């Protein structure tokens, strides 16, 4: 009975080789669209960015003169760029931990089995459907010093005329608050998914053993959620390095460069000042910053967190 099959599965060597060649060709054809697009719009431009970062460029972005690492040296001495790095790092510190912790609290609540919990889950994830532009416009109005709701409410407590977006001391915090709100939806959704993946029998055992809610949270839930937590933290980190839209709409990098985060700084240098060389050098630094974060995830993420 197996005879015809076994003949088919062990053909002569040349036939097999021919078939392997065909498979390779076919595989390449299936992959070709992705490979071509990745090459044109990702690998080539990344190399070109590195290349441009070693050159002085004209206003059309053509390299004019090789300057070595001068762009980088100049940047690291430039007060504006150092301010930009400071703003970026502060922004990351303000937004990432707060987003993750708040979303975690929401996810823990929304993971309880209650009537109508689906509705709350939908509510909490809703900011994921909000575009950066729409969200920023809404927050811009809420921050409006004279007619915005935030100052209206604060005036009830006798606090008046806070210039949320114009005061260099608080502008970055204001942008961060709105960003945390924008992040909540996505972070919540991922964390809720992580919670739902935890084996329910573990909770059952914990309940039978009669441990308290907090004990269960610390000893069961959080350890088992750690891969998801770690993932969501990394993604949020990378994401916050890439912030642009809310800065462009809310503050334009101002006041006094207080919110001039790295991507906005690249944008301004390249597309407003036409200084492509310096902008490319900044882009290279951004690339390395994100590379480090990703590398740390691969290096430590796998080991420190608990996998089921």
């Amino acid at each position: 009975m197996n005879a015809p099959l076994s003949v088919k599965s062990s053909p002569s060597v040349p036939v097999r080789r021919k078939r392997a060649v065909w498979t390779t060709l076919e595989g390449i054809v299936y992959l070709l669209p992705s490979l071509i697009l990745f090459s044109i719009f990702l690998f080539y431009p990344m190399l070109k960015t590195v290349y441009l970062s070693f050159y002085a460029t004209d206003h059309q972005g053509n390299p004019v003169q090789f300057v070595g690492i001068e762009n980088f040296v100049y940047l690291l001495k430039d007060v504006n760029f150092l301010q930009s790095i400071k703003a970026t790092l502060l922004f990351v510190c303000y937004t990432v931990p707060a987003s993750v912790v708040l979303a975690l609290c929401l996810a823990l609540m929304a993971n309880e089995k209650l009537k109508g919990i689906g509705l709350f889950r939908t509510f909490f994830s809703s900011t994921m459907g909000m575009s950066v532009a729409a969200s920023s416009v809404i927050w811009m109005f809420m921050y409006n010093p004279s007619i915005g709701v935030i100052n209206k409410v604060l005036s009830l407590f006798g606090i008046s005329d806070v210039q949320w977006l114009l005061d260099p001391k608080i502008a970055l915090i204001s942008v961060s608050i709105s960003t945390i709100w924008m992040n909540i939806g996505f972070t919540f959704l991922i964390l809720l998914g992580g919670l739902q993946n935890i084996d329910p029998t573990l909770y059952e055992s914990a309940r039978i053993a009669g441990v308290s809610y907090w004990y269960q949270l610390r000893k069961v839930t959080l350890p088992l959620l750690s891969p998801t937590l770690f993932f969501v933290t990394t993604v949020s980190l990378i994401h916050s390095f890439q912030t642009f839209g809310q800065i462009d709409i809310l503050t334009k990098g101002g006041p006094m460069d207080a919110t001039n985060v790295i991507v906005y700084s690249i944008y301004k240098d390249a597309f407003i000042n036409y200084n492509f060389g310096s902008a490319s050098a900044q882009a290279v630094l951004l690339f390395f910053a994100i590379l480090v974060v990703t590398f740390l995830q691969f290096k430590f993420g796998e080991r420190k967190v608990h996998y089921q």
Partner: protein
Amino acid sequence: MNVLRTFLLYALLVICSVVVLFPIVYAFLISFMDGAEVLQGHIWPQKFTMKNYVAAFQKVPLFEYLFNSFIVSFIVMLGQLIISSLAAFAFVFLKFKGRDVLFFLCIATMLIPWEATMIPNFLTVQKLGWLNSYLGLTVPFFASAFGIFLLRQHFKTIPLELYEAAQVSGVGRFRFFWNIVLPLSRTSLITLGVYSFLTTWNMYLWPLLVTNNDRVRTVQIGLKQMQSQEISTEWGVVMAAVIVVILPTLLLLFVGQKHLQKGLMQGAIK
């Protein structure tokens, strides 16, 4: 004790919902107020008026913006679905030399932040003459490592025996891909579709760079335009436009939430 706990939980859930939803509801309410009322800083409109919505469509080409966003998001969605599923199919079912190297290349793309490549990309698109065109807005986003991973995860759950049986009975690879693999992976395809549509609809920086006229400008850039033009006087109109812009994605999110959640987890973690 248990009743108390449930009550407290509901109270917390409601408070959190109010806080999270407040900006959206606030924008919604403002969009029904007339100008004078907005300036007085009311929260609840005394009289609901639709004037702002009419004005939003009349004063700016909001309809064109919406149309452009829809076309661009739809094309990117379609492009990502086709190109990612082809690649994922090759990575799962075709065994050939060099496949692992190519797979590694796909992983490597995830290390490159898109913003670090935007300057040469802008120059490329400019040289191709794709500024202010749908091509420039869509083609650079057709290939997606996330999409390839997501679909690869799902394709891997299809038993290899099915593929071998198809091979033995002489069914071509493309027919197997089209008639068996794709229908079996419907949920993942929907997830990727929803995700790519959402992200493209909400895209901001790239459309800002490559469009400078109303013919192809997307709705997000339209919002920025509006807000900077009408800023001092007509917040009601701006908020009406905001509501119109977020409605499609909020609906899509509510409908596709379960899919999206599952898919994001699969594509991201495993």
